[in-house]
């Protein structure tokens, strides 16, 4: 760079010749140079400021534009890192314990109309009415012609054939939306457990499928949870067993002219309900509407096994006996005086057909089903201890089964638990419970004294329940129940090879309007456990108003009605459960005793 000298020789010499001070020239030049430097620095600084300002402006503009874009655009899933499972967002399937399908989803279409976009509303209405016989042409035409209507649903679900037919109309105002519907491929099988489903909030592009009853409603949140990623809900039910049980029970109900029937089969160790039937039943694909008048229990929607609370009669006697043995008050051979008269609180306690069994041991009280015998045991136990025992078996609250209807099956208990209540409850009157309650109570006896909670969900292992009675008392009760079948009231319950034990119960139905009991309407129950020497399953069969008419006079006792049905059921379902018949012992009691 060329710098101008501060003291240019020519000017200095010239100044000296004129007698001027040459330093003034230097100062002047220095000043000029400084001004020049200052101007340059300013330009440079201004340039830098400009660049900096531009950079900041650009940076903030980019951020602002990006924020604006994010705010204004449709949100979309990050495409690169989502896993493949994110596709499954539909309601989970329901399968049985072996993975067989009980409920699943089907994709189908819904049909809606935009009347304003319609070219020929009248023709569309006519053709739609031809495709769907339940739609009225005049009604559709009126709605299509309504000027205020921009949108209307025509059908919620279409079959592919119907969809093609609607498509062929060629009307641009008729539009399809995708729909997912719930399908129960087995029809009425396990209808009361599954319940049913319907649409919740509906949009054009999709609709919520929500459970309306049964386990679909109870576990609605879980079934809809996308975090399941399509994992099916495994129930404890066994499809084949359920189907066989329904078939046998239906045949028995028809044969015995019963109004309704229920059965519960429970695994005594895990508490799993393998099959639960209530008849009459319904098709959950086309769930009927609840009754608006009359008795709710007449509707096929009513679940007799869970919601129906009945006085289950003599099946309760074993609870008095087992508690008395557990408390050490008696042993199976202690003799009880069952001779009349017996009066409690001013009421006379009678026997079936006015029998008099005399002085008999506790075992025979159960085998012969003596009311006075169990009544005396109940008096010895006392109302307080009886209440505590029945409470520990779950008879005081609704069963914890995983269906919404279970909450409606709260037992009916006496308001004041007097001595008389204790006596009547010991033979199953004055307390109304559901068949499932009874099954859970018998499961505690069959599980050697450990209570189990009935459940519809598949379990991984035995339940760690609370011990409610000693093992010794439970084993003695199992022997008694076996004897009821071999030599007592349930002789038709014998299934060769399966060593069935159980107790019958026949209770007169109370009149709906109060005022005593019907004499010709009964609830016949058989509560069974098998195989008796090592109980694995508990089966409760209840028939509502059965009557057996093969004899000279109609027979209504459980021994003639519920027991043969239960025996047939056990011979059908025990092989399906994988139980081998055991024909080794001619005298099963000896086997029971020997296996202790």
């Amino acid at each position, binding site marked *: 760079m060329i710098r101008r000298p501060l003291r240019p020789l020519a000017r200095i010499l010239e100044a000296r010749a004129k007698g001027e001070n040459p330093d003034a020239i230097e100062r002047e030049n220095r000043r000029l140079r400084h001004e020049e430097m200052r101007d340059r620095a300013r330009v440079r600084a201004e340039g830098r400021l400009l660049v900096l300002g531009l950079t900041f402006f650009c940076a903030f503009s980019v951020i602002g534009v990006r924020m604006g874009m994010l705010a204004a655009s449709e949100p979309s899933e990050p*495409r*690169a890192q989502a896993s*493949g499972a994110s*596709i*499954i967002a539909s309601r989970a399937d329901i399968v049985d314990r072996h993975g*067989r*399908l009980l409920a*699943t*989803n*089907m*994709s189908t279409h819904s049909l809606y109309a935009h009347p304003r976009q319609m070219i020929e509303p009248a023709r569309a209405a006519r053709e739609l009415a031809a495709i769907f016989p339940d739609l009225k042409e005049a009604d559709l035409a009126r709605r299509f012609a309504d000027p205020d209507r921009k949108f209307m649903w025509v059908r919620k679900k279409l079959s592919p054939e119907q969809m093609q037919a609607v498509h062929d109309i060629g009307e641009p105002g008729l539009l399809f939306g995708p729909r997912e519907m719930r*399908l129960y*491929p*087995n*029809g009425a*099988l396990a209808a009361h457990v599954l319940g049913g489903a319907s649409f919740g909030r509906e949009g054009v592009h999709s609709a919520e499928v929500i459970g309306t009853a049964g386990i679909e409603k109870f576990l609605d949140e879980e079934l809809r949870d996308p975090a399941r990623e399509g994992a099916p809900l495994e129930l404890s039910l066994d*499809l*084949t067993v359920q*189907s*066989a049980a329904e*078939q046998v029970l239906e045949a028995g109900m028809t044969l015995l002219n019963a109004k309704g029937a229920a059965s519960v089969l429970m695994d005594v160790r895990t508490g799993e309900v393998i099959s639960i039937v209530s008849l009459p039943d319904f098709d959950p694909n086309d769930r009927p509407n609840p009754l608006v008048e009359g008795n709710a229990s007449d509707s096929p929607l009513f679940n007799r096994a869970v919601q129906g609370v009945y006085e289950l009669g003599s099946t309760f006697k074993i609870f008095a006996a087992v508690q008395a043995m557990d408390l050490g008050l008696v042993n199976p051979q202690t003799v009880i005086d069952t001779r009349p008269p017996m009066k409690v609180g001013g009421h006379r306690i009678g026997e079936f057909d006015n029998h008099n069994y005399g002085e008999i041991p506790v075992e025979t009280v159960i085998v012969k089903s003596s009311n006075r015998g169990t009544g005396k045991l109940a008096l010895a136990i006392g109302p307080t201890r009886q209440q505590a025992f029945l409470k520990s078996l779950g008879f005081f609250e609704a069963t914890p089964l995983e269906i919404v209807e279970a909450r409606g099956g709260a037992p009916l208990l006496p308001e004041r638990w007097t001595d008389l209540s204790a006596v009547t409850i010991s033979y199953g009157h004055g307390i109304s419970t559901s068949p499932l309650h009874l099954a859970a109570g018998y499961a505690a006896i069959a599980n050697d004294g450990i209570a189990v909670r009935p459940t519809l969900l598949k379990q991984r292992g035995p339940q760690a329940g609370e011990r409610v009675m000693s093992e010794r008392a439970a084993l003695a009760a199992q022997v008694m129940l076996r004897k009821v079948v071999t030599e007592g009231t349930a002789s038709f319950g014998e*299934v*060769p*090879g*399966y060593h069935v034990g159980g107790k019958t119960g026949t209770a007169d139905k109370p009149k709906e309007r109060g005022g005593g009991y019907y004499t010709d309407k009964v609830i016949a129950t058989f509560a069974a456990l098998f195989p008796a020497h090592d109980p694995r399953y508990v089966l409760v069969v209840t028939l509502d108003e059965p009557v057996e008419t093969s004899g000279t006079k109609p027979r209504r006792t459980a021994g003639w009605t519920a027991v043969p049905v239960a025996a047939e059921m056990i*011979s*059908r379902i*025990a*092989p*399906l459960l994988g139980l*081998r*018949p055991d*024909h080794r012992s001619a005298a099963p009691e000896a086997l029971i005793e020997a296996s202790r």
Partner: protein
Amino acid sequence: MRTFLFLLTAIAVIASGYWVYHENYRTHAELDRVDDLRRDIGAARERLAILRAEWAYLNRPDRLRDLADLNYPRLGLLPLRPDQFGRVDQVAYPALPDPLEISQPVDISSHGALGQ
């Protein structure tokens, strides 16, 4: 030298720009492929669900029971009963083979023998 460096830098910028564009287009193509695959998986799942529902529908116990009844003359199918379980003593064991008669001496060698 300086010119060469400038040239080199410019070429590097162009090359990296080209590479970035190239990778960007490839990534987008892959993402589109992933979307297609995902759609295919969704469709396959839907088809699978329908097939499973149909399988369950065709195998519903009512239908199988009716079919077994209809074809009883040909198939003779009955529900499983306890008496259909066999016992071990019902199994016909094959007759015991005759005891070996070793009358002729045989040469034994260790050729091909495995261990002891």
